[in-house]
């Protein structure tokens, strides 16, 4: 059927409350004295209004139904964390092992919590701070970079994040600076602490100049019993030869909505790797869109997802090979149980001049129940001839022969299944290059399996 685009003056009913909230809070958002920021937010809400919540007719959203999200009336989370200030540091599960030096920033319902964070010692010139602070200390840097990478009219959540932009993380690495320890960012959604469903729109901006290096670890988790809407946007600018490792684990409450958009602009010889471990969320989407904007870029996107119950998780990637001699690699593996549904949409674009592109993509899904569903759409769009691109996608259940092999050796069914599932996911998790992070992720997978029925 034809895609119909309706342009009307009255926004859709689900959109209006967001416009109202914006109208109410815009003037009190931080950095109100910065005119460029005001303009950016205004542009964001205009874009959001224009796009609304896309329906299934919009190709990029054909498998992810946003109705459940549209039905909830979210209010902006109170500034400063509000009543959730009660969250204590002792309760914080972290990815990085305790006792090691690290740089940790903690956000509760999208607001930076100085009291829970410890930024630690950084190499000279490096900046790791909250966006709220950076609006005072590094306004120039923000003005130059914020809201500049991969802005499109096909992602209303990115626009919505810009409209409500208030807090988040700013990382700036000057030329040649390497931050050895991972920068860990913990996002806690509290949902039920306040009576009404809340939403927050944190922004991460990473500006890595030539030959700098850093590891960013995002840890998203939910506490409390209510629903909330975490709408994240991460912008990455990697200069020549910069090396960025970007790892994320999403363990939101199973009532939560989690939307994350990552855009990256990668210059010559830069290397960027991204891994997402998805476990939580009622409805979640990771949209990752790097543009390989110089020769010799190496880009690796990978992830593992484990969903159960009524969860819906969506992984959408677009790797844009804009320049020749770049390499991209994607490995995604997922396990789907209960009546959960997983979506994988992976697109590789090779622009006319991007000769000698090497692109590889793999998505494999295991269906563990009779009601689980996987929708997969690996896509190649190629305009250059001297390229090597491939993708593979599979869906199926655990191999009976393998189960039999293990059981014949005296391993009980549950352990055998868990062993096979862990091994299945390990292929993806091995893409994580930092040992401590990989081991932590593996531990989480093992923990998840233990909570599942056999």
């Amino acid at each position, binding site marked *: *059927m034809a895609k119909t685009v309706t342009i009307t003056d009255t926004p859709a009913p689900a959109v209006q409350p967001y416009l109202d909230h914006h109208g109410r809070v815009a003037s009190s958002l931080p950095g109100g004295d910065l005119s460029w920021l005001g303009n950016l937010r205004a542009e964001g809400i205009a874009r959001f209004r224009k796009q609304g919540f896309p329906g299934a007719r919009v190709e990029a959203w054909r498998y992810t139904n946003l109705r459940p999200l549209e039905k909830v009336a979210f209010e902006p989370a109170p500034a400063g964390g509000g009543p959730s200030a009660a969250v204590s540091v002792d309760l914080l599960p972290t990815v990085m092992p305790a006792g090691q030096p690290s740089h940790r920033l903690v956000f509760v319902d999208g607001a930076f919590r100085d009291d829970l964070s410890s930024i630690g010692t950084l190499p000279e010139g490096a900046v790791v701070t909250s966006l709220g602070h950076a609006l005072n200390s590094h306004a120039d840097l923000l003005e130059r970079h914020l809201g500049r990478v991969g802005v499109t009219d096909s992602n209303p959540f990115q626009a919505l994040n810009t409209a409500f932009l208030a807090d988040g993380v700013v990382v700036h690495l000057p030329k040649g600076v390497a931050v050895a320890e991972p920068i860990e960012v913990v996002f806690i959604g509290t949902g039920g602490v306040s009576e009404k469903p809340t939403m927050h729109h944190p922004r991460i901006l990473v500006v890595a100049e030539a030959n700098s290096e850093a590891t960013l670890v995002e840890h998203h988790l939910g506490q409390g019993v209510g629903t909330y809407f975490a709408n994240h946007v991460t912008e990455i600018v990697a200069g020549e030869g910069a090396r960025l490792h970007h790892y994320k684990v999403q363990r939101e409450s199973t009532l939560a909505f989690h939307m994350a958009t990552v855009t990256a602009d990668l210059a010559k010889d830069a290397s960027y790797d991204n891994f997402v471990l998805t476990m939580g969320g009622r409805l979640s989407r990771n949209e990752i869109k790097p543009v390989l904007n110089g020769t010799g870029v190496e880009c690796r996107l990978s992830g593992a997802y484990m969903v159960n119950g009524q969860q819906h998780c969506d992984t959408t990637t677009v790797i844009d090979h804009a320049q020749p001699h770049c390499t991209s690699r994607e490995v995604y593996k997922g396990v789907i149980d209960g009546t959960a549904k997983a979506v994988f949409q992976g697109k590789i674009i090779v622009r006319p001049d991007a000769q000698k592109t090497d692109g590889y993509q793999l998505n494999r899904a295991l*269906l563990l*129940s009779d009601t689980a569903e996987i929708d997969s759409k690996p*896509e190649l769009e*190629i305009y250059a001839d001297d*390229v090597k691109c491939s993708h593979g996608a599979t869906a199926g*259940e655990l191999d009976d022969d393998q189960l039999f092999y293990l059981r014949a050796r005296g391993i009980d069914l549950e352990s055998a299944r868990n062993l096979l599932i862990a091994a299945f996911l390990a292929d993806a998790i091995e893409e994580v290059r930092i040992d401590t992070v990989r081991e932590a992720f593996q531990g989480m997978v093992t923990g998840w399996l233990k909570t599942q029925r056999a």
Partner: protein
Amino acid sequence: MAATLETAEQVRAVTEQKYKYGFFTDIESDTAPKGLSEDTVRFISARKEEPEWLLEWRLKAYRHWLTMEEPNWGKLGYPPIDYQDAYYYSAPKVANKPKSLDEVDPELLRTYAKLGIPLKEQAILAGVEGAGDSPSIAVDAVFDSVSVATTFKKNLEEKGIIFCPISEAVQNHPELVKKYMGSVVPYSDNYFATLNSAVFTDGSFVYIPKGVRCPMELSTYFRINAKNTGQFERTLIIADEGSYVSYLEGCTAPQRDENQLHAAVVELITHDDAQIKYSTVQNWYPGDENGKGGIYNFVTKRGACRGKNSKISWTQVETGSAITWKYPSCILQGDNSVGEFYSVAITNNRQQADTGTKMIHIGKNTKSTIVSKGISAGKAQNTYRGLVKILPKADGARNFTQCDSLLIGDKCGAHTVPYIESRNRSARVEHEATTAKISEDQMFYCQQRGLSSEDAVSLIVNGFCKEVLKELPMEFAVEAQKLVGISLEGSVG
């Protein structure tokens, strides 16, 4: 890069080849007034002396079509089609229906001769009735819109096989047509299929009775002829329990400056243990090197494996048309039914192809195989678009998909858009896709052994397509291999 330059050079050389089958046969046509309206639909129906129910069906389709929008999701670009600026019916003037080939307009026979389809020869060839040693072909020749020659009818009648123009089937076997037409592709299916339902002029009808194995390949040669006539073929093939039929469809069209619309509908139905093999070689006029002219080919082809253990196999070699929009599909309803799709799509110059398949697994232990080879040269765009859908009850379903693209030259595009939806855990779905060019190593290897660069390309491309070409019946394999060679002659990578 020298190789790239060379490639571009050679692709241009290919471009300059004139369309081999570009000629225009001057036969008086009995034509409907230009444009599309309820009157046009009534005109066609009246000309065909159709029963009331069919006219009603056509009108229902037409009225529905008015409410529809032209699809735009394909990776295709073309100027808007003016549906009022075309003739929807044109029939070669024949006073009486020819009783034998001799009565057919000699001009028409000459046309076939130019196309290399010696009808007479085939008639003689098939005269070997009963001997059955050499495979024979029955041709239901579609010249413009009306079938003017149907051969070997008798031969087939003895077995109880019905092979005739669909308009004739409407007269002689209304119960079959009524029962099956629109049962796989409903009149409201999609924009082009709905248009076809309203104005279809002719096509083939095949019915293979229970337990009969059709003794020969059935074939229809389509030809677009009269100026500005869109062709709206409707083909319906029914294979009853335990029967088998292999059907060939081949097309060439005369050179023409105006774009011609072609919106065919093909419906296949297999009952228990039946099998239909449907092969297409499509070589319509692709337009000149600037994309001028050429056929717009918007086809809806769909097969329903209704019965247990039934099988539908699509094989297509698509080298022609300016625009190809075609997704031969299988609905695997019966348990253990099998769907296959083998495709070679070659696009050159400014040709655009958006083609693929849909495999809908409904029954248990249903299997499907998709092998698609796309070759893109010149400034062409070649897209594979496919859907594999496993429904919750399709226990043990199995799909394997392989999509390979080959690019020749740096101005063309090759795209792969597969949709994979699985809702059954015991189903296994595998999809693989690759994109590459003819490597310099491969060329060097061949040339070093004394092959000319042209032979080397032909060899490599034919090797690339082999998996698909080997699925074609013998009669077509030769033509297809030649077509692959011609389409890419000289384009060394």
